[in-house]
């Protein structure tokens, strides 16, 4: 027996402690080689009479196992579709055989979980007879598979419901919840929690007391906790669970349905048959285009961008220790909060002390909410708040490493703020503008040092939105870019890097969604159908609801400015007319006023579409329009704009395009992003779809020449990019 990833130690009592420590890796991953070693281990445990039991633990400092090795899994393939399916299925059945042996070896096997155990790591512990978790770890356990289009594949869909009941197990897997040791104990996933230092002692004690354990489902009198699918309560779980799943996901996530199915079908049979059922669903999920796109964007690309994939490598690491923020409004206050949280000293400037102070109060409120939910403490609140200094005097910016301007979205106002700042900051200080629409190169004109000027575009609410869109202007230096990316990493957000353009990348593509929704209103499609189609398309809100939330008045202003400045036209288009009717004529500027396209209750919750909306135009509405066609329009117009951005070099890396779309404006995550979606559909099919839509609805759907080229050559965004990088 040769072990590389595990250390074997046998004590005088015949108890073996197997310590997981994959050499050269920061975390343990459940790879095929790890499973093979575990297979050897359990054979020996079962075979040697002197061995009384097994403890599995790790040494990765609070990280038991981060899950399966996704790269390795993606590599399992075959000559064709059938061969690949067989290879994956066989590999999963191989894991099941080893894990079953853990359960049936006749000797006690205990998992001593010293920290995070996710996915395959958690599944390994579920195949042990007993789980003890460190109570003083910040580690979490959970099943993140569904987030990237997969399902738990090493027995999770079978063992977890048999352990805690389907009602408790399903949400953990479907919603990828991560829970701490106390919750795990409460749910019955782990049987005991002890201080990390006592894990092994506790495990040995359990082994001594339980020489011949069996997993519950291997016992003769086993009963499904909460009953099987056709018990009274079980029937509720699945009948209502199916509806809740569709209600939450619009059935856009095949893996989530697979999880439901694997649990339902698996609980109707014995554990071994159940594991086989799981392996088939896992194989289907892994080999789907959907999971491939999700894994690439939501796992690999997100991680790569987070680690600074777009950072100019020649520039030495920078660190922002002191940050200046101009404007203590919603955005400035939000940026102050996330920066102070990351340990950065923040000078928050506004025109009056009251305004500046109000910006700090925002952080107080956010902390109070966290504290009331038990997610933070008053000590932490005091510590972080002490780092935010509300000021009115620009001179206080003298020592900052980075300035972020978040003043009113107006060139003149921004130019003044820029000049005032330039007068006091050091020559090396980087100046970032949080503009969402105004081209950076133009704004940089107000600066004495345009090479230090860069766009750092945050999304609202800043504390929750994970994306930062970094905009490189004509004169922006590599050092400015590196500083912005390093800063984004420090505040734990994901940066994408785009080139200057009106609306940059995110605002530009995203506005296509709302404009298309308004075009549909103009065509007389009944508003609920448009809104539901938006949600069914996988967008977080319908186009009209989105307009309400950003402010119909704001959107109207942008649209008017665009017409005058870009289109040079005096004639408003249909979207502008509708928004003007809502804002100017009907006095409904959006969610902030409690009224826009929708009525809102006094807590700002969406109540219903404003009944008056139905009197717009001639007051007649079509409700028989094919919802699939509406969905196609809403999605295609955004993806097409992303493709245009790529052709125009606004984005130069498809990872920026896909991650930015999902994190920035919530573009249908199951597609892996707009560019991935086009790659999945195939450029030729996408071009044909665009052309068909262009014939019916107008030139705005006409595909660009890049897409036409790709359609001819059968190329994809990602293969083009890989070739370009290699060249």
């Amino acid at each position, binding site marked *: 027996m040769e072990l590389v990833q595990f250390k074997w130690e046998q004590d005088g009592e015949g108890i073996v402690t197997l310590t997981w420590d994959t050499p050269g890796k920061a975390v343990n991953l459940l790879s095929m080689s790890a499973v093979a070693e575990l297979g050897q281990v359990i054979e020996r445990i079962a075979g040697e009479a002197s061995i009384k039991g097994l403890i599995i633990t790790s040494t990765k400092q609070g990280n038991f196992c981060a899950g399966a090795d996704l790269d390795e899994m993606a590599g399992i393939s075959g000559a064709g579709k059938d061969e690949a399916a067989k290879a994956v299925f066989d590999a999963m059945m191989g894991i099941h055989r080893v894990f079953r042996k853990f359960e049936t070896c006749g000797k006690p096997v205990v998992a001593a979980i010293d920290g995070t155990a996710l996915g395959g790591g958690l599944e390994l512990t579920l195949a042990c007879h007993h789980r003890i978790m460190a109570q003083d770890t910040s580690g979490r356990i959970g099943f993140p598979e569904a987030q990237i289009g997969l399902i738990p594949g090493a027995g999770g869909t079978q063992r977890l419901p048999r352990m805690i009941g389907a009602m408790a197990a399903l949400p953990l897997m479907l919603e990828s919840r991560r829970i701490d040791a106390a919750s795990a104990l409460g749910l019955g996933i782990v049987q005991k929690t002890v201080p990390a230092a006592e894990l092994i002692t506790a495990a040995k004690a359990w082994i001594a007391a339980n020489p011949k354990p069996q997993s519950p489902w291997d016992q003769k009198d086993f009963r499904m906790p909460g009953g099987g699918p056709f018990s009274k309560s079980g029937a509720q779980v699945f009948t209502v669970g199916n509806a809740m799943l569709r209600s939450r996901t619009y059935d856009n996530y095949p893996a989530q349905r697979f999880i*439901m199915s694997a649990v339902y079908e698996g609980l109707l049979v014995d554990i071994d048959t159940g594991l086989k059922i799981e392996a088939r669903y896992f194989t289907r999920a892994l080999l789907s285009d959907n999971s491939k796109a999700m894994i690439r964007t939501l796992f690999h690309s997100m991680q790569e961008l987070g680690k600074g994939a777009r950072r100019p490598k020649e520039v030495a690491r920078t660190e922002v220790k002191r940050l200046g923020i101009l404007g203590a409004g919603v955005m400035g206050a939000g940026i102050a909060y996330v920066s102070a949280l990351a340990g950065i000293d923040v000078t928050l400037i506004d025109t009056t002390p009251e305004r500046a102070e109000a910006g700090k109060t925002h952080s107080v409120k956010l902390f109070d909410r966290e504290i009331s939910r038990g997610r933070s403490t008053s000590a932490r609140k005091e510590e972080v708040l002490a780092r935010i200094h509300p000021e009115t005097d620009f001179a206080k910016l003298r020592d900052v490493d980075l300035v972020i301007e978040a003043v009113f979205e107006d060139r003149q106002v921004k130019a003044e703020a820029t000049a005032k700042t330039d007068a006091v900051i050091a020559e090396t200080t980087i100046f970032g503008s949080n503009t969402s629409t105004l081209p950076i190169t133009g704004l940089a004109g107000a600066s004495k040092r345009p090479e230090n000027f860069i766009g750092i575009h945050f999304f609202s609410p800043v504390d929750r939105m994970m994306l930062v869109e970094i905009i490189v202007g004509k004169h922006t230096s590599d050092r400015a870019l590196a500083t912005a990316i390093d800063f984004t990493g420090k505040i734990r957000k994901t940066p994408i890097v785009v080139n200057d353009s009106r609306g940059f990348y995110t605002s530009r593509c995203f506005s296509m969604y709302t404009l298309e929704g308004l075009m549909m209103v103009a065509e007389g499609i009944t508003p609920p*159908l448009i809104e539901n189609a938006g949600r069914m398309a996988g967008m977080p809100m319908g186009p009209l609801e989105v307009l309400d939330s950003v402010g119909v008045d704001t959107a109207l202003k942008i649209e008017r400015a665009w017409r005058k400045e870009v289109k040079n036209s005096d004639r408003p288009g249909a979207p502008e007319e509708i928004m003007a009717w809502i804002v100017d004529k009907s006095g409904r500027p959006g969610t902030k006023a409690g009224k826009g396209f929708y009525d809102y209750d006094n807590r700002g919750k969406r109540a219903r579409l404003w009944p008056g909306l139905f009197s717009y135009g001639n007051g007649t509405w079509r409700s028989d329009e094919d*919802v699939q066609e509406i969905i196609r329009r809403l999605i295609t117009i955004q993806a097409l704009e992303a493709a245009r951005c790529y052709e125009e070099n606004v984005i130069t890396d498809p990872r920026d395009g896909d991650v930015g779309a999902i994190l920035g404006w919530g573009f249908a995550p199951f597609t892996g992003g707009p560019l991935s979606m086009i790659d999945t559909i195939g450029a030729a099919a996408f071009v044909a779809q665009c052309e068909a839509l262009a014939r019916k609805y107008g030139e705005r759907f006409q595909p660009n020449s890049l897409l036409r080229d790709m359609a001819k050559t059968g190329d994809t965004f990602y293969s083009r990019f890989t070739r370009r990088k290699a060249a």
Partner: protein
Amino acid sequence: MTDCFIYDAVRTPRGRGKKDGSLHEVTALELATQALQAVRDRNRLDTAELDDVILGCVDPVGEQGADIARAAVLKAGYAENVPGMQINRFCASGLDACNLAAGGIMSGQTDLAIGGGVEAMSRVPIGSSGGAWPEDPSLAIPAYFVPQGISADLIATVDGFSRDDVDAYAVQSQKRAAEAWKDGRFAKSVVAVKDALGQTILSRDEHMRPETTMQSLGGLKPSFAEMGALGFDSVAIQRYPHLEAINHVHHAGNSSGIVDGAAAVLMGSKEKGDALGLKPRARVRAFASIGSEPAIMLTAPADVSKKVLARAGMQTKDIDLFEINEAFASVVLRYLKEMKLTPENVNVNGGAIALGHPLGATGAMLLGTALDELERRGKSTALITLCIGAGMGTATIIERL
């Protein structure tokens, strides 16, 4: 093709389907048995002449399980050469049992048979047999499963029926049922359920609330709003995305009642009837079943009515009386709208909202009710139809002789 004659139809009264219902003490087997005994005794039937007994039952588990038709044949003391078969097409099972019996006769493979059904809902609750349709994610999710009550509210929303519309229909059903009882119009078919000593346990339908008014119904809370909020409303809206919200209008007072009951219909060829000295009352003109969109679920009665009319070479105006099962008020209102009918000749003696809906038996009961009423009115043709779970409909046209 051989004519299929209807010789007789009997039914038990419908007992309230709860613990305090009169028939709660009676087994499902006994209910079916008494229906079979009644049809035998009224017609002095030599049961050895029967080729089959087909009974509908929607939750055929426990005491209703394992072919209750054969069990009832044996318990009723029928000749042992009479086979029995239980069928299930949800709410139309009783009518489908008759159609199946008729099909055998019309094709010449059967000479004499009984169709009918039984459901002791107070004892074997609705849903007891489980089933994949609501639960199996591989079907329920892609096919937009919602419970029937949500479907009924969905119909009301799509068709624009208000709470007042559905309540008004319910009041009319109660009024018509009460008048029918007062007038003795059910007397021909209803046979009292008795105990072993011959004491009557129940002789009248006991779910009725003749005192029902718009006002009394107005106080009832919608039954399916909470269920809708769990996620089913969203499912219904995803299937009908032009709707913004589901208007929950149904409640216990405008939906069919949960009751216990059984029914049996004696059918046969002319030759067999002549030989046995039976007097034919009506002829089966045509029957049909159909599938429809399963989420809205309950809209097939119009589709299947059109299908069966075409099969019979008839038109709506050729039908004198319509019986459509009152699963929910919106089902009937939509049927009236789609078939362009007026209430005058539809469910003239009320329906399941007043009388109750003993799932597996109802179809056979409606057949008998229509036949009795044709005779009372001296009219000729009736169309009987029911909406069915999972989006189906069954219909039968009979013609009085």
